[in-house]
């Protein structure tokens, strides 16, 4: 029984996270409506497996996540990184984290400020779905104003489409 309750709670936590992953938005919503009574859909859409322990020496501030052009969807690699971040946050229960959302220089700066925020919010919601308390996570967007890499090429752009994690222990 306890396990079942946990599954439902996990499902409820996952749904808001999925809402922000634009690519599969519709699918997530339709699944959310159907499955509540039966446990089967949970197996179809497995909740992210919490990583028990972060890799030793894991530094949340040095592990950014990266996005595709004009997207705030979390890539599988970004999800993987976020799972380690969640594990690190469990190991460091007093730490709080500011998630900074950024965009590359393409697109105009008003839109990119909004896009950076959408990216940071997607990361935040995913961490919350992994059990991190929302009160430990704050979000700020810098849009295209603080590039990590200079240059007008795909290599620089890819480095700039990111979310950074600034931890305070």
């Amino acid at each position, binding site marked *: 029984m306890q396990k079942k309750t946990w599954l439902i709670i996990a499902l409820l936590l996952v749904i808001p996270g999925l809402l922000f992953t634009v690519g599969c938005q519709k699918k997530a919503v339709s699944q959310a409506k159907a499955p509540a009574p039966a446990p089967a859909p949970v197996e179809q859409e497995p909740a992210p497996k919490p990583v028990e322990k972060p890799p030793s020496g894991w530094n949340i501030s040095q592990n950014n996540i990266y996005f595709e052009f004009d997207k705030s969807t979390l890539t599988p690699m970004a999800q993987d990184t976020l799972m380690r971040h969640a594990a690190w946050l469990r190991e460091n229960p007093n730490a709080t984290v500011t998630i900074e959302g950024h965009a590359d220089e393409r697109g105009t700066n008003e*839109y990119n400020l*909004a896009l950076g*925020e959408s990216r940071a919010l997607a990361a935040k919601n995913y961490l919350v779905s992994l059990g991190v308390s929302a009160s430990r996570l704050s979000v700020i967007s810098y849009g295209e104003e603080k590039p990590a890499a200079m240059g007008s090429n795909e290599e620089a752009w890819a480095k700039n489409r990111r979310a950074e994690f600034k931890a305070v222990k």
Partner: protein
Amino acid sequence: MRRRIKLYILIMSVTLLGPSLSWAEYDVIDITKPFLRKIPLAVPLFKNAVGSGEEEQSSQEAAEFLSDSLDFTGYFKLLDRGAFLFDPETNGVTETDLNFQNWTVVGAELLVTGYYRLNGDDISIELRLFDTFKARRVLGKKYTGKVANQRDIILRFCTEVIKYLTGGEGIFGSEIAFVSNGTGNKEIYISAFDGYNPRRLTTNNAITLFPAWSSDGKWLAFTSYKAGNPDLYIRDLAKAQESKVSKQGINITPAWAPGKFELAATLSFSGDQEIYLLTGSGKIIKRLTKSRGIDVTPTWSPDGKKIAFVSNRSGNAQIYIKDLATGRVNRLTYEGQKNTQPSWSPRGDKIAYTSQMDGEHHIFTIGTDGQNPVQLTYEPRDNESPSWSPDGSLIVFSSDREGPNRIYVMTAFGTDQRRLLVLAGEQTNPKWSMNHQNN
């Protein structure tokens, strides 16, 4: 305000006696015409009353500034002084003294003459506009004031010329706000319409973006990170006092409702970016958009009944128009992957915007019915942030065509593209005010 009253006192203008025609009798410039024929205009040096070297220099500056200011509008073809059959020192400047054939033969259709007197700090300038083919004076004004106000005097006469030719107030009472990072931080600056006298408005020592003028020019709203978060500030320019909208999330892209102490802006405190209507002191009146995802950069129709804005509700950034009375939302742009930064023309009929194409950004205009998108810029690489002059005849924008981002101006049809000013650092996010300076 005090400065304006002072100007009224310092600059006296008198309409010179004699016949004067109303603008309705002239073939007025129709600034809605896409391929406007420029009117050949002659502005010879002024005739000087005293003849001192000091007077001559000041007088020449006045004539050249008058010529440059009228040239700035894009309506005129300024004729080369070297071709003139005219010596201001020996020839007279009134219709009885002028030989109009000397002007028609060099192709001038309009002629401005000046009679200039410098006496200590005081100047008096008689300025006349002639229709050379009809051999008639159509405007005549005498201004007296301090030499320090020479720029304002000349611009007042230029406004009279534009009013005579177009029936509108022109642009000479307007200013341009923009962002510059010359200090190492993005801060807001303000210059005159022509880039004259750029000065820093904010000293936030933090990223400061998106200036927005109220219609009366008394208020400037902007976003700044000076308290850490991207908050919205609404500044009383005369008193240098600010109110602040500092909700959780982003507080960005303000746009004042025409003629009102209200503004639209994007706030994301709900966890989703939406456009809200705020009072001029920053209190929320109501939410204007309701759509999951990005909704930013509102711009008002001149009648205040609609807003255009950017949304990614279709999957990528496109421009939409919302009718505030009916609540109906229509998508405006379909061509291009990403269309942002809408700016509604003060004439009401067109919206300028930035379109991303093949790794570059270019400025377009489109009818408010979604018809006839026209590309105005072609120079690589990024041409962004279009903003209309108060009469809808010109567009200011930023471009990196010469390397760093700088501010440029072009006509509403994309012609006469020129750089407005050179400052240290890069300049972006220009916003053209309505006419609020008294010239």
